[in-house]
């Protein structure tokens, strides 16, 4: 089982959120658990820079050999950057889900809600497998 970095926040949709500390801009990706469940990722569709999103919005998709999953906005705000590298090389999601496989950055509007700690996310993912 993959390790779950304890300095990130998580969602029930198996996304991670980094950089909440300064309350300005956060980075979002999908977890190693999600990447393993998907299998080899072959296509990533990300939102446009400048899009305003609300937490829970479906704003992209991750497609693997066997399935497709939606990407949700874990927080509300404006998409200020997307990772073109992961669009060009979708397998980064499998090889470096918490690093080069990041997906997009959002400038926060308001306070994030309903995010999980690493401990809570660990409990979530050890319970359903």
């Amino acid at each position, binding site marked *: 089982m993959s390790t779950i970095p304890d300095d990130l926040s998580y969602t029930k949709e198996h996304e991670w959120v980094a950089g909440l500390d300064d309350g300005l801009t956060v980075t979002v990706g999908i977890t190693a658990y999600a990447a393993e469940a998907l299998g*080899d990722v072959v296509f990533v569709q990300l939102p446009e820079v400048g899009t305003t999103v609300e937490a829970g919005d479906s704003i992209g*998709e991750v497609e693997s*050999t*066997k399935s*497709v999953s939606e990407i949700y906005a874990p927080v509300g705000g404006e998409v200020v950057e997307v990772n073109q590298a992961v669009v060009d090389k979708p397998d980064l999601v499998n090889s470096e889900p918490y690093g080069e496989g990041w997906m997009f950055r959002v400038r926060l509007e308001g306070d994030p809600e309903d995010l999980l700690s690493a401990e809570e996310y660990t409990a979530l993912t050890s319970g359903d497998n």
Partner: protein
Amino acid sequence: MSRPTPLRDIHESLGATLTDFAGWLMPLRYGSESAEHNAVRERAGLFDLSHMGEIFVTGPQAGQALDHALVGHLSALAVGRARYTMIVNEQGGVLDDLIVYRLGDEEFMVVANASNYPMVAARLTERASGFGASVEDRSDQYALIAVQGPKAQEILATLTDADLEGLKYYAGLPGTVAGAEALIARTGYTGEDGFELFVANADAAPLWHALTKAGEPYGLLPAGLSSRDTLRLEAGMPLYGNELNASLTPFDAGLGRVVKFDKPGDFVGRAALEPVKDVPPRRRLVGLVATGRRVPRHGFPVTKDGVVVGEVTSGAPSQTLGKPIAMAYVDTGIEEGLAVDIRGSQEAVDLVELPFYRRNK
């Protein structure tokens, strides 16, 4: 609760992602399914196919019973050879696609899909009544391990004295592999050369280990159902439940050649199939290659100018082509300007004839 195969412990020790498939607990992939796919295309892959059904039909009229029960002419099959065939209902709808091996003058083995073999065994039993033949479902006794890929013969040759060189495609012979009695068949579902080894359950794990060891210098990888599906899709091979089902005849699926009207005697489905054999089907099975990167999947509508003209039966990203591919039933005569409706967006596709991939022989 899914049924395990005799190789379940091995799959778990290899870290396989296991999945339920037709009531069986099967390896979906061991590591990267793309790597497994490429291993089979370039070197070799090892598959556990123990979920398949093995039904034996034996007796002096076993061939005639199969001629009556199936659409093929099995009594004409030579001992040691195999044939791809189908079982249909009275309406001509496909109940399953099968490979039939003739093991002896009076002995045939019918290999049926995991999801269908209890039904196939029941139908064969019904249809064989009145013939000097008995039908026995021995699926619970047999494991099936496949070695597929251009290096398959070299790997297998290190474990058997059987004449692999002389074993033709769609032939099978009894032999000893790594000390285990096996039916060695040159068949597969990957589009590559390869072998399928039918062995007793108890021999499955030792055979798997022996093949793994023998295959190591050749770069053999264990391969799961995910790569099996993309391999067969590239090879344009139908999957029951996707390209084939009981509402389609073999002619609808473009596989009318398996129906042998000139064999002696009547067979189940003849009356329904004879009138449709020369009628062009409303839709035909074709290949689609996406121009973008989103993947057409089973059940997605095929459209032209926004109008539905077909339906995708199987789709996946193709390792070999580097693009998403799909099989689909598309209205006969429509070949240009097609798209697949992928979650509301019309993604352009090119229609191609099947298969997508054919190995160099």
